[in-house]
């Protein structure tokens, strides 16, 4: 029943996005443009081949930027829009399990996130970029990253964003510094030492680094660095989903009183 309800929620979100089209188009345009910019700038700046530069640009573009805006921004938008249009109140009248709601939003953004990942690697393949590591590990990192962003989206959407206008300021205010410190736009090696310390606490940095090591260097979980990033990512996704779930339940309890 939970899975069936989750699929219904996911299908509804995807249908709504398909009807609006604008968000979907921008979520296609954004990673492509960022990949091209990242790849070409890195090749020129680091004086390396485009194959090398795109090998590094692809994972950063996926987890550091594309998934961030679609999965985190999208989740916040979905929750805020649902509350704004009061359809959340309608859902309260149905026997909808809160896990189904979370899982439904996660599934919808998995579809979008996986689509973006495939698109980025498909474009990168024009520069002879190949996924060097284990595909399953790459998939786990991407899915865990989507889970982290959806969990964060739940936290922000239920706690901080009250109106649709709040979504942009939240994503920009919290997101852009996280992305810069996470190495989404340029390698973290360019950062000064004191900021490098901060990056250790940044989940985007760990997602980015984990995928980068697996995708570009072909590393696996036997590599200590990869293992650290991977463990951080799994710990983070667990905490953020639990916190997001709690925040969602609290929001629903408030909605019931209205």
């Amino acid at each position, binding site marked *: 029943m939970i899975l069936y309800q989750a699929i219904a929620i996911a299908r*509804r979100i995807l*249908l709504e996005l398909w009807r609006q089209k604008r968000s979907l188009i921008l979520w296609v345009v954004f990673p492509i443009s960022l990949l091209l910019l990242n790849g070409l700038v890195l090749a020129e700046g680091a004086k390396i081949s485009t194959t090398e530069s795109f090998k590094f640009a692809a994972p950063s573009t996926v987890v550091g930027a594309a998934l961030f805006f679609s999965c985190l921004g999208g989740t916040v938008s979905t929750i805020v829009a649902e509350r704004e249009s*009061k*359809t959340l109140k309608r859902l*309260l009248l*149905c026997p909808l399990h809160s896990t189904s709601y979370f899982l439904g939003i996660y599934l919808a953004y998995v579809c979008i996130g996986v689509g973006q990942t495939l698109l980025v690697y498909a474009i990168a393949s024009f520069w002879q970029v190949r996924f060097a590591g284990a595909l399953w590990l790459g998939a786990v990192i991407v899915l865990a990253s989507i889970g982290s962003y959806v969990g964060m989206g739940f936290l922000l959407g239920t706690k901080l964003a009250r109106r649709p206008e709040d979504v942009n300021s939240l994503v920009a205010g919290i997101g852009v510094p996280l992305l810069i410190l996470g190495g989404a736009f340029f390698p973290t090696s360019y950062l000064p030492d004191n900021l490098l310390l901060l990056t250790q606490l940044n989940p985007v940095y760990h997602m980015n680094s984990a995928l980068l090591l697996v995708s570009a260097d072909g590393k696996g979980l036997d590599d200590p660095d990869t293992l650290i990033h991977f463990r951080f990512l799994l710990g983070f996704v667990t905490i953020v989903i639990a916190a997001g779930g709690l925040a969602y339940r609290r929001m629903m309890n408030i909605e*019931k009183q209205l």
Partner: protein
Amino acid sequence: MLVISHLSKSFGQRQVLQDINLTIPQGQIYGLLGANGAGKTTLINLICGLLKSDCGQITIDGQRAETCARRLIGVVPQENLLYASLTCRENLAFFAALYGLRGVELRKSLQQCLTAVQLSHRADCLAHTLSGGMMRRLSVAVALLHQPKLIILDEPTTGLDIEARFEMWQLIQQLPQQGKTILLTTHLLEEAERLCDRLGILKQGRLVAEGTMADLRAGFGADQMLLLQVNAEDIPKTLVIAQQHQFIPRRHYGSECLAFALRGRRSLSDIVPLFAEVQLQSITLQPVSLEHIYLELQDPNSP
């Protein structure tokens, strides 16, 4: 079908519902009336299991509301809480899935509901392209999807034009024939009088009157209402004449005129001569309506 016994609810220090007792048999339309803030929405939220009562019990078809409400009740909220960018069919399919309907059962239920609310011809139209009346009917269809035994209609015709209102009334009147029990809240007294088998009037969280229209009339203590408009200087004399003939003065909200309740059936030709000494500007004799009873009960001075 729905039994509410000794139900009370307060928010902090504010008592919102006090000792509500109510029974709605299967297949009846029950109208719940009351001013804004009387406690109608809180009562509905309690029946739907969205809120927990302080004391008392609600049972639906013999089962406690807390455990079964969402499966046994179909709710049509005050607003059309639907997904505007989905079609009617997609909206229904989505909510049906949340109720666990699938496959043939889902398709059958969808078709039945679309037919019942006469929206089959607009099934594949986006919800935001529907008129207000159609949106409301789609809302009713959502509430019918899982074959609920009890349907709660929260101000179902608010904001609808006259034609759409009549269509909605027809739709509501058909529901008891399918074995559905209806709890309807409305501010339209004509609607309540026309549709409901029984009525309950809430005032400051208390059910101050309850029963059929005949019961309420009996409780009102009169059969007819006499409305008189006289010159200001004639008012004392008019009140004396009315008292002599045991006409009961009542508060009237419609216009600046005197209102009296009359027992038994009289005709204007009997009454006009009684007021020969005063200059009548207008005189109206009408049977006691729900409006008279409601206004009387909502009077701050009435118990």
